[in-house]
């Protein structure tokens, strides 16, 4: 057998079959590897992606008016929004209300319209309770107006006309302080209703300050821990972790005890003569930041520590032996090697802070509440789940945007330690 014939054989029929078999084997292997990740993917799909999709859907879903008042919506097509509507609209409204299967549908309709026009709840429920109203369209109109003169006000009818489709941008618009006027054009909310823009800004502000404090406090501690022998470092690490395992509510209550005007901190400071009257440390921004920094500190220390553990001390020594001042060596040689830890810790703390809700609710004032507080309010108190979902979507989008900016600027590969 010589070289040229074997080469010819490889180029022939057999070689192709061999290559095919090889790629098949490769593909099989890939599929097997993929199959191993399937449980995780299914888990993510069920617990993360589907809920997020449902949340986004609920933020634009608008079934109440179109489901309850189909005839009324039809009669309002082409209606000039500034004049009172025609008698046919009143008649259609009464007919629609009469066709509702259950009083809970009327309640849902009333709630939806009330979140557009305050007062619509009592108006709609009043009409629903007055049923049956019969007669010619004109008689029906007069009867409704007699029941409640507000039925002549165009804003209620505009709200019905505006919500005549199954999907609405209104919740999302409201979450960024915009709204549609009666003509359907997008405009800014009046100044006394612009709430969520400043609240989102405040959410990021507080998170940023908390991250900064966590870094300033956590970095030296992690550095010190990393430089200790393993036994000692482990012991001290437990001290970092014990508060990490304690319930947040317990820690919040502890801070109330410590920070109140007759608490340990103020008494101590007054005892050593540093201050004359107690500092306001609670139920304001200071209290929120102090408690959040304490709660989130471990999330900064742990990634920093694990990165620092792997930084060889020889580089700094080399820099110093080559004539660098120790401080300059620290900042120019050591710190850059811990960037992955800094970015992972900062990102972790920042993202966790953004969703904080209990701590600011219990330790903050009215202007220290973060966006999730309002999401909870709309969910639990106002029962306006569309608005709650829109605010959730806003928080999600803002966080994703920020993360992409961070990736672009930071460029550092994310390392969770």
């Amino acid at each position: 057998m010589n070289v040229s014939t074997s080469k010819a054989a490889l180029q022939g029929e057999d070689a192709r079959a061999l290559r095919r078999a090889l790629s098949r084997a490769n593909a099989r292997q890939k599929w097997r590897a993929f199959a191993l990740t399937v449980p995780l993917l299914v888990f993510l799909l069920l617990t993360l992606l589907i809920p997020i999709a449902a949340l986004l859907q609920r933020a634009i879903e608008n079934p109440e008016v179109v489901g309850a008042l189909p005839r009324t919506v039809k009669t309002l097509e082409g209606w000039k929004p500034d004049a009172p509507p025609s008698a046919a609209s009143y008649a259609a409204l009464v007919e629609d209300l009469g066709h509702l299967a259950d009083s809970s549908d009327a309640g849902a309709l009333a709630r939806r319209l009330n979140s557009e026009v305050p007062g619509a709840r009592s108006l709609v429920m009043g009409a629903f309770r007055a049923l049956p109203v019969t007669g010619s369209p004109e008689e029906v109109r007069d009867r409704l107006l007699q029941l409640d003169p507000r039925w002549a006000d165009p804003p209620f009818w505009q709200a019905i006309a505006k919500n005549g489709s199954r999907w609405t941008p209104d919740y999302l618009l409201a979450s960024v302080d915009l709204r549609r006027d009666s003509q359907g054009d997008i405009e800014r909310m009046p100044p006394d209703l612009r709430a969520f823009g400043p609240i989102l800004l405040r959410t990021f502000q507080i998170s940023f300050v908390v991250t900064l404090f966590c870094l300033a406090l956590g970095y030296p501690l992690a550095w010190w821990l990393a430089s200790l022998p393993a036994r000692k470092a482990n012991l001290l690490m437990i001290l970092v972790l014990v508060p990490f395992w304690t319930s947040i509510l317990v820690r919040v209550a502890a801070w109330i005890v410590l920070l109140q005007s007759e608490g340990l901190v103020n008494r101590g400071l007054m005892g050593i003569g540093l201050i004359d009257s107690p500092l306001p440390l609670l139920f304001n921004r200071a209290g929120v930041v102090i408690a959040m920094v304490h709660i989130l500190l471990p999330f900064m220390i742990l990634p920093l520590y694990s990165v620092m553990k792997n930084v060889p001390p020889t580089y700094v020594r080399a820099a110093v032996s080559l004539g660098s001042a120790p401080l300059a060596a620290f900042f120019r040689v050591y710190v850059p090697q811990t960037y992955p830890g800094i970015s992972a810790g900062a990102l972790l703390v920042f993202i966790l802070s953004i969703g904080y809700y209990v701590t600011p609710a219990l330790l903050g004032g009215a202007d220290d509440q973060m966006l999730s507080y309002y999401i909870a309010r709309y969910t639990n108190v106002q029962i306006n789940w569309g608005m709650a979902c829109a605010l959730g979507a806003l928080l999600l989008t803002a966080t994703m945007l920020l993360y992409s900016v961070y990736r672009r600027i930071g460029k550092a590969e994310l390392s969770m330690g």
Partner: protein
Amino acid sequence: MKKHIITITMASCLAAPAFAEQQITVINFGGANANAQKKAYYEPYEKTGTKVIAGEYNGEQAKIKAMVETKKVTWDVVEVEAPDVQRGCDEGLFEKIDFSKIGNKADFLPAAVNECGVGVFVWSTVMAWNADKVKTAPTSWADFWDVKKIPGKRGMRKGARYNLEFALMADGVKPADVYKVLATKDGADRAFKKLTELKPSIQWWEAGAQPAQFLVAGDVALSTVYNGRIDAANREGRNLKIYWPGGIYDLDYWVIPKGAPNKDASMKFIAFASQPATQAVYAQNIAYGPVNTKALAKLDKKVLDDLPTSPANAKEAIQMNVGFWADQGEALEKRFAAWATQ
């Protein structure tokens, strides 16, 4: 022996369903109020043979809504605040109440009789101070705003409800006219403007237990507070005082979530808790007013003096306008959130 145990186990398994029918889950708001309910209602009712499992929540109607919508109702009787009764009733969250099974309508405060709810007690949001720390007693709601006359911080509930009413009273509106004024655009503007005056001195509270703590600790000079919390603190030896005029009283209600499993037992429990005798025991344990007016005759003067329903205390008080807050609540709370950022 072994056989014996098996027989017993089997017997208890068989008995379990019968036993399960005789227990109901009652959800309340916790705290001092829950303790008083336990003494006045749950423990005596258990003697009639039905086990009462008490639970707490924070008024989240979303929980009831979720239970009713998924048809997995595990709560039998729930205590809810007034604004949520009518709203929940409209939206089909609660069972309708057949009042003939509860008692004689004429014996009850008119507000205690609702399509879907039965009043539990009357409570009031009032102004209070710590007489050990504040020497000048306030004599009007304008004094609440006057930080020169009575120096110190002011405790207020985080939110629009109550605060807007009190702001208008401080601005000279008569208590009886408060809701009429607040319903107008100018009136709401006026209330927020007045609130802005006091903003730097306000220390906000979130949970009902907080304002009494603030007063005891001396963190605030005056505070708005639920009157029962003051009573609870005074029972522990504090010296807190209440300014009753302009107080905003309101009722809490028992409701039965729609589709709750033990409707009959629940109705019996509510009827039991609405009797003059049990209502009187409740009022003796916490200073909230009975809704069954016949209970008043069973109470001595010392208890009556602390109740929001006693004639002297109720004279210049107003009832919270549930209809107003159902209509305007969402918009005003949003405006409050915007106001807080300014």
